[in-house]
């Protein structure tokens, strides 16, 4: 069931995760305002004046709630109590608050790293991306390595962006069966790996698992 716009909670409205930092909240606020403000082309003629006013006031309220630590906490509690979202979000937020400064920096670095990789891939264009993926349905570590290299992404960068240990990454790319992590971890590693390189997650995970089976 798709939620109606009116029914979106503040996080859904801002399209941010429940654990979003106040930096992310501000960023999202800026973006959504750009879409719904009076002068925006993107919503030109779509709403009546009243409808627009209502949307803008909801956005304003959402913003004022999400940047205020106290208000946000009670909003989160209300969301959980109403059963709309699982309790995990509270834990997620609590943990976020607790992380010492150097970890925040790391999280930032991780984000910017990802952005850099994305940019690289974008510049490479879609042709390279497509051409490497057309071979059969089995994907070996070597295939992944070639793919990564053809996109101009270093293993180090994948590590920075995914935090998968370099040894595990190395084992994956060398098809080093004995040193591969257990399957559940392997699956989640492959998923992150694929996501970072903007590959089709299902194809990569299934293709690689087939490759492991064969060996």
């Amino acid at each position, binding site marked *: 069931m*798709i939620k109606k716009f009116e029914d979106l909670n503040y996080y859904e409205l801002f399209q941010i995760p429940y654990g979003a930092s106040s930096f992310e909240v501000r960023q999202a606020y800026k973006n959504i305002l750009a*879409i719904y403000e009076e002068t925006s*082309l*993107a*919503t*030109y*003629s*779509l709403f009546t004046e009243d409808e627009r006013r209502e949307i803008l006031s909801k956005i304003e309220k959402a913003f004022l709630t999400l940047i205020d630590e106290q208000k946000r906490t009670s909003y989160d509690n209300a969301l959980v109590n109403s059963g709309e979202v699982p309790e995990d979000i509270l834990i997620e937020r609590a943990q976020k608050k607790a992380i010492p400064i150097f970890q925040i920096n790391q999280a930032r670095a991780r984000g910017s790293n990802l952005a850099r990789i994305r940019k690289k891939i974008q510049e490479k264009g*879609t042709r390279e991306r*497509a051409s490497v993926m057309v071979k059969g349905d089995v994907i070996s570590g070597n295939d992944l390595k070639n793919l990564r290299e053809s996109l101009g992404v270093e293993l180090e960068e994948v590590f920075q962006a995914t935090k998968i240990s370099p040894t595990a990454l190395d084992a994956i790319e060398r098809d080093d069966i004995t040193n591969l992590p257990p399957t559940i971890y392997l699956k989640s590693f492959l998923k992150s790996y694929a996501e970072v390189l903007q590959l089709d997650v299902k194809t990569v995970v299934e293709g690689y698992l087939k490759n492991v089976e064969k060996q």
Partner: protein
Amino acid sequence: MKRIYSIGGGKGGSGKSFIATSLGVLLAKQGKRVVLVDLDLGASNLHTLLGQKIPQKGLDAFIDKETRNLEDLALPTTIPNLYLISSTKCSLEIANLFYAQKVKLISAINDLPFDYILLDLGPGTHFNTLDFFLVAPEGLFVATPEPTAIENTFNFIKSVYLRKLKLALKQTNMWYVFKEEIAKLSRGTLKSPMELVDILVKREPEKGKLFEDLLKRLKFKLILNKFRGQVTENLGEQLVDVCNRHLYPSFEFLGNISYDSRVYEAIVARHIFIRKYPYTKTVSDLQTMARTLTEKRQQPAELRISR
């Protein structure tokens, strides 16, 4: 695998025919067998954009039952692998097709043996245009970054949804429901197709859901044409975001195509723009788009309006 794309978008002159032709040329150059179907009946001009003379045969022959096999009307162009089914001979009256003729034509289009079938539509939201737009499981819609075009675009999309809904109601003998409910509205008209869906779901939850699913399954891909530097950089993404939030989440942004005054010059000189100015930003934008379309991805199942 066969792909059918309709190219529409409400606003006249937004570049639908230019884009249909250009994508057709580029896909053909990739070695795909491509057919352009000129469905702007009564105002067709794809042959002009391809720098060709007025074709001798066209859709009118199929509609008049002179030619049984639509494929026979696909004429080669100066581009290898690219074929054109013209409609220059279709008079304005043909634009008012009988429903049965239209159903036949739509099913013949679906059966055309080509890798890519591109349907060029006329402007506006006439129900024939909407029905042709609905032939393809995925519709490309072309907008330009101006308030007037944006307005027409939203209007076009809503009209597509409403048309789909009306056809489904007729086919399931539920047309009377529509009449009854419209009569109940104090405004006398619907605010949006979603309002009708809500009414239907409330009245008959099970069937209503089915109707809603029909609409959800329509896929739209937005192209922003005549893009210029001073336009909000991510307008396309914003538009798609808005559609996904306020209509149904079936919208995807295909990309911008840069404005270039030489497009006009090429058309006037009856040159194929892509051939004449292959190193422009506009052509590279079109190329990126053609590649995106050929990336292997499943097209949703066909959504014929017939039967």
